[in-house]
Every structure is written in structure tokens, then in C-alpha cells.
């Protein structure tokens, strides 16, 4: 009635293992060959410069800019010539730390304003008819693809003293009997432009998050007695936090390091840490101190990226990049 397998014969496996390792080795080799060119390139043109900068931050500035040699030979004695001076200079006066905190403040304010402006737009797009969503999204991205300097230049025109905005505003101030104001070369101008340039970075991740929300949750909340505000505050808002974190990182980091916007719109009051870094490398040519400032900025960026990665993991969903 039933039939059984003949007992399995003992297999000859002596050649099996080596051949298998050979196949795996070929696979590994292919993998490494693929990673090698981009890996080497970025080691050379991304990792190496960063390390050289770390090295430079402990050296003395050169007589005519640049760096002094990192060793000297005296009486056939070889000596290293490193210093902590550049790092201490950071704390010597409140100028640099103050500027750093001011830059952090600008970046934070930019992030907050971006969130406030991006939220309604992202929500509007997410709640629009599916057919229009791609178009509405494209309209957000388009200005972002026009040249960075053109976008700053646009605000130079708007804020210029001869511009309609300034003249109009000063009609109002004159009527109220206040001193005429200048929009150009102010922190207002810098932050407005920072928001303008970085707004899409907040809208896109926020939209990506909001679009995934299940609208039936809102129906359920309403059904269970929540009003419109409660629906938003208890359902939509908490779910959208991962999108906001992602957007905040994408806005905060580039805002912090910017130099072109304060350079063109900020005047002397509006400068940020980026301007000082640029100044150390291009104008005063004090590379060691410039390196110190850059490394501080790098450190802050790394911390933020790690924080974002952690938040992204705990939140579970998309973290932007």
C-alpha cells in the first residue's frame, strides 16, 4: 500500500566545500571591484581633505597665509611643531562663540518658519485630488532648481532701498512718525532668504509623510467625537513628526553653514559663521583657525545627522535622505 524511499546513500562531499568557496570568492571579488573606484575617489576627495583639515587645525599659520611647516630641524634635532593655540582662540573672546550661537539661532528660526509655512502647503497637497498632486509638487520643486544665486538676487531686488517694498513700508513708517527703515543688509533679509532657499527641503519630506496617512483615521476620530482641531492635534500632528524631523535636518544643516546669503544680504550685522570661515580661508588666510571653525561646524553637523538617524529609527518611517 505505501512505499518508502530507499535509504539515502552516504554522499561523497569531499570536493563540495572548496568549489563552493570558490564561487563565493568570485562573487566577493566582483563586489569589491565595484565598490573600489567610488570608494577610492571619495577617500581621496572627501575623507582625505577632512583629515588634512583636522591636521591643519593644530598647526601654526604660515607667514604669508597657508600653513607653517609641521616640523622643524634645529641642530640636527627633529621637532614637531603643533599647537592648541587655534582651538584656544575660539574661547579667547566671545566673538566667535557668539557668532556661532547667533548662527545656530538663525538656523533654528529658519527651521521654525519653514515648518510653519511648509505644513499648510504640504497638507494641502496631500489632501488634493490625486491627479493634481504631482503637478502641485512640481511647482514646489521648480523654484528650487533655479540657480541658488538667482534666488538670492531676487531678494536683493525686492529688499533694495529703491524697491517698491521698502518705499511702501517707509510711507507707512512716515505716517506713523517712526524713523524710516532699511530692509537691505539686515537679519530680517538674511532669515527671509534662508527660508526662501530652504523651504522645499521642508515641504517635500513633510508631504511624503502626510501623503501616507490613512484618512480613515480622521473619520474614525471624528466618529468618536473629536472636533477638527482635536483631529489635527491628536491624529495628524503626532503622525507627521518623522516628516518634520527629516525636514528640520535638511533645512537646519545647510542654513547653518551658509555664507552667500549673509554675504549679499546681511551687511555687517547679518554675518554668520560661514562668512568667518570663508574669510579665514580666502581673505585673512589664517587656515589653522579656519580649520578649527570648520571642524566645529562639522562636529555640529555630525551630531545632528546622528540624532536624525536615531530619531528616524525610533520613528520607524522615512528620514528624508
Amino acid at each position, binding site marked *: 500500500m505505501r512505499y518508502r524511499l530507499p535509504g539515502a546513500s552516504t554522499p561523497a562531499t569531499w570536493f563540495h566545500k572548496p568549489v563552493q568557496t570558490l564561487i563565493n570568492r568570485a562573487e566577493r571579488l566582483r563586489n569589491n571591484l565595484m*565598490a573600489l573606484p567610488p570608494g577610492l575617489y571619495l577617500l581621496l576627495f572627501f575623507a582625505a*581633505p577632512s583629515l588634512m583639515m583636522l591636521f591643519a587645525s593644530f598647526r601654526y599659520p604660515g607667514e604669508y597665509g597657508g600653513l607653517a611647516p609641521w616640523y622643524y630641524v634645529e641642530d640636527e634635532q627633529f621637532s614637531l611643531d603643533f599647537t592648541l593655540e587655534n582651538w584656544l582662540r575660539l574661547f579667547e573672546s566671545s566673538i566667535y562663540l557668539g557668532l556661532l550661537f547667533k548662527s545656530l539661532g538663525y538656523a533654528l528660526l529658519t527651521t521654525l518658519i519653514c515648518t510653519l509655512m511648509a505644513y499648510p*502647503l504640504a497638507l494641502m497637497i*496631500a489632501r488634493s485630488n*490625486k491627479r493634481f498632486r504631482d503637478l502641485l*509638487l512640481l511647482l514646489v520643486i521648480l523654484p528650487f532648481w533655479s*540657480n541658488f544665486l538667482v534666488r538670492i538676487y531676487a531678494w536683493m531686488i525686492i529688499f533694495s532701498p529703491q524697491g517698491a517694498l521698502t518705499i511702501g513700508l517707509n510711507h507707512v513708517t512716515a505716517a506713523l512718525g517712526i524713523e524710516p527703515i532699511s530692509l537691505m543688509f539686515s537679519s530680517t533679509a538674511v532669515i527671509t532668504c534662508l527660508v526662501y532657499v530652504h523651504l522645499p527641503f521642508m515641504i517635500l519630506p513633510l508631504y511624503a509623510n502626510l501623503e501616507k496617512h490613512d484618512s480613515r483615521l480622521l473619520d474614525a476620530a471624528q466618529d468618536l467625537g473629536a472636533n477638527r482641531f482635536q483631529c489635527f492635534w491628536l491624529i495628524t500632528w503626532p503622525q507627521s513628526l518623522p516628516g518634520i524631523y527629516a525636514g528640520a535636518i535638511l533645512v537646519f544643516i545647510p542654513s547653518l553653514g551658509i555664507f*552667500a546669503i549673509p554675504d549679499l544680504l546681511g551687511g555687517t550685522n547679518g554675518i554668520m559663521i560661514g562668512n568667518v570661515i570663508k574669510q579665514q580661508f580666502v581673505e585673512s588666510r589664517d587656515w589653522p583657525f579656519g*580649520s578649527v571653525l570648520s571642524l566645529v561646524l562639522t562636529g555640529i553637523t555630525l551630531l545632528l545627522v546622528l540624532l536624525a538617524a536615531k530619531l528616524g529609527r525610533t520613528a520607524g518611517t522615512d528620514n528624508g*535622505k
Partner: protein
Amino acid sequence: MANKRPSKALLSAGILVYLFLYIPLAVVVIFSFNDSKLNAEWVGFTWKWYEKLIHNDSILRAAGNSLIIAIISAAMATVLGTLAGLAIHRGRQKWLPALVLGPIAMPDILIGVSLLLMFILLNVSLGMVSIILAHVSFCIGFVALAVQSRLAGMDQSLIEAARDLGASPWQSFRLISLPLLMPGIIAGAMMAFTLSIDDFVITFFTAGVGSSTLPLEIYSMVKIAVTPEVNAVSTLLMLVTLTLITALSKISPTVLRQ
């Protein structure tokens, strides 16, 4: 969010944000046709700023430089970025993602000054070559992302099916993976091109005498004075990117969202 319509308040807030995004650019475009040296009030229509532009040698030279730099960096970044995307997808080298995505996460100025430092210390003369080397290093990541997202959406069993039906590893890459990755690679290449031709910050630090690019040229013009000639260049530049973006969205609509 399928059946939840935006409310009136939401709609008007959204429209205001769109206005905030577009009015500044509209101002630039409108004043590029204004027959006045000041970007203040409308005087009359003119083409003269565009005509002046055609005779501005330094702008034309800079535009040429930008184009050459963008083409070469995009080509290099596409090859390296595609390899990086493939390698990251296989996930064998744990260090690779940090290296590839690092330049995207870092503020531009840090990449710019550290490269400047290295080029000077290694006696690399600043010019087209140094700019291209710098551009490639920050474009690789964007290409890798485009390729990788394409790979992530690809059914892994397609490759296995090819091998199963008799294709060697190389044949299955050439006949299956590569054609399926092509939209991602092209989108990545165009993105690298746009990023390179638009870049100001990194170029600012790695450019030397005679290697000025269009953004650098605009910067120095703007630094000195606001003239409608800048509006004209900007308008033309917008037109070029608009064309590129349209082409890009035709090839791969999703890639823009990264």
C-alpha cells in the same frame, strides 16, 4: 488622504506659500525686460539687456566653462555613482554608504574649504581640473541614490531568472540589470549635470584665475551692483533648468523627490 478635501483656510494658506515661492522669481524675469537701469519700477519693454549679454565676453566664457565642467563632472559622477549605487545595494561594504552620502549631508562650505586646503597643500593648481574633481565628489552621492532607489524597486528574482535561464553574471547584468537601471542612471546623470552647472559654493573655493563659471560670474556682478543684465542671465538660466527638469521628469518622475 484620499477623501479628505483641503479646507478653504488650508487652500488659501497654501496659495500664499506658492506666491512666496514664485513672486521673487517673477520679479527677476519681469525686470529683465525693463528699459531702466534700476530694478525699481516698470519703464518699458526692451531686449537690450539680452543683447548686451551676447556681447559680454566674460559671461560667455564663464558659461562655456560651466558647460564643460558640468558635462565632464556629470559623466565621471555617473560612472562612479552607478558603481557606488550597485555596491551599496549589495551591502557588502559597511563603510561605503557613509562615504558616499557624507558629501550630501555636509554643508557645501565644508567640502569647499577642505578641498581648497588639500589642493593647495598638494600643489594642485586651482582651475577647471580642481573644480571638476570637487564637483564629482559631491555628485557621486546623488547618482548613487538615484540608482539605488531604482534597484530597491527592482524585483530581485529578475536577476535570478536570468541566471536560471542560462545567462552568466555579466550577461544578466548587461541584458537585465543595466536596461532596467537606465532611467535611474540617466536621471542621476542629469541631476549631477544640473547640480554641477548650478554650484556656487564649492566652485567658489576650488576655482582659480581664468576658470570662472557662470555662478561665480553672477556673484561678482551682484557683489558690485545690481544691474538688469544679471536679470537677463538669471532668466536664461531658469529657462535652461526648466527644460532640463521637464526632460528629467519625463524620464523618471520619482527621482525629483529625493
